């Protein structure tokens, strides 16, 4: 029975992926890509990875999908979407087929000759878990054992926003999307947004002993922000530019300060003081959640606002 489900999912995933790749219509591609994300979330559940499932649904499918759709809508409004698509050349097709087949064959070969791993890292994780300050293994790995990776990863997120900001010639961003002045939407939002905020906080809190954590919570927060944004309530207009920037950097800064304080306290970088791990991790996660929410929102709004160098006159026509 389980095998059947797995195989069905496998077929579904591959079929959806192929469709999203080869569909003539770009819109369809994007929709199928989002669908793929959702299907994959099911797959992650089957793989025993509910954390990833949450992240995949919220970030992989949700945020990425919204970003793609938004861009698509933007391109479409300018009205040049599918017209200038050349059909790729024949050698390119050949190269593509050749390299992809090579990759698949190599990977299959590798997978079917898997040796037994000499090191069982999960045993080490279980052994060290009591000292980590949290009882959920993934959170322990992300924010304690391998917190350095996470620090850099948050850096990557900040950097993405930074590049977006640097490409904006004007500091005060203007949004091209007028909000939807729909009364029903606003009415529902008053209901939905608090629910999303609560869920987000729940996810954050849950992260210490079960699936959930800063990234999922941040994605949920971002979803709420984006929803608000789309309905015309501009968070960035409410906050001052400086406040916004501070919010974006809050998580990274808190993380960095905690990391540095441990060096000043004579411990290695990122080592939490005895007994303080749980609290510090929660602090970091709280700050991260807010920042990730704002970062993902900013990535959305930055992509949305036109460059104000405005060499092209037609960019403000919507």
């Amino acid at each position, binding site marked *: 029975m*389980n095998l059947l489900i*797995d195989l069905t*999912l*496998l077929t579904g*995933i*591959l079929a959806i*992926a192929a469709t*999203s*790749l080869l569909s003539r219509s770009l819109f369809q591609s*994007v929709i199928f*890509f989002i669908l793929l*994300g959702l299907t994959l979330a099911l*797959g992650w559940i*089957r*793989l025993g*990875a509910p954390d*990833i499932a949450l*992240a995949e649904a919220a970030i*992989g499918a949700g*945020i*990425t999908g919204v*970003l*793609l759709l938004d*861009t*698509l809508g933007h*391109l479409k409004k300018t009205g*040049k*979407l599918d017209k*200038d*698509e050349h059909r*790729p050349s024949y050698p390119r097709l050949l*190269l*593509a087929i050749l*390299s*992809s087949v090579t*990759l*698949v064959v190599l*990977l*299959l070969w590798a*997978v079917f000759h*898997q040796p037994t791993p000499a090191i069982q*890292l*999960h045993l080490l*994780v279980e052994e060290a878990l009591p000292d980590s300050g949290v009882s959920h293994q993934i959170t322990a*790995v*992300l924010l304690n*054992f*391998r917190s350095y*990776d996470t620090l850099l*990863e948050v850096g*990557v*997120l900040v*950097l*993405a926003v930074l590049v*977006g900001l640097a490409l904006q010639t004007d500091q005060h961003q203007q949004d091209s999307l007028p909000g939807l002045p729909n009364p029903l939407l606003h009415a529902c939002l008053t209901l939905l947004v608090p629910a999303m905020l609560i869920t987000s906080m729940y996810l954050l809190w849950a992260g210490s002993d079960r699936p959930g954590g800063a*990234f999922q919570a941040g994605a949920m927060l971002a979803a709420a922000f984006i929803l608000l944004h789309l309905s015309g309530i501009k968070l960035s207009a409410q906050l001052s530019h400086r406040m916004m920037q501070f919010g974006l950097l809050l998580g990274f800064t808190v993380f960095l300060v905690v990391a540095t304080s441990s060096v000043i306290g004579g411990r290695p970088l990122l080592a939490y003081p005895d007994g303080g791990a749980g609290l510090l991790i929660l602090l970091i996660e709280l700050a991260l959640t807010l920042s990730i929410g704002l970062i*993902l929102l900013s990535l959305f709004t930055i992509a949305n606002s036109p460059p104000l160098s405005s*060499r*092209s006159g037609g*960019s403000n026509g919507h």
Partner: protein
Amino acid sequence: MDTNLIFTLGGIGLCGLGLFGFIYHCHLLRRLIAFNLIGNGTFLIMVGFAQRGQGVTDHVIQALVLTGIVVAVSATALALVLIRRWFHLKGSTQLPEDDAS
């Protein structure tokens, strides 16, 4: 055929499809989708393959995949910002093919 192996194979399939699309397509958005396919495939392989080897649920690799997903979405967002700027300047959704990659 256990679940881990099946999804590892799914990941391989996604990687293959993604690579094909990445090379084949010229449209920048399509290539971005293809890149995300490769990414998703890689994540599936990461977890499936590791858990197949370990024989249990491996939380370390799952944590790494979480990191990977976040990095991938940042990459997508960054690429989209660049693509939209490019579109504003040139009105095109693909790069000129003088000596394309």
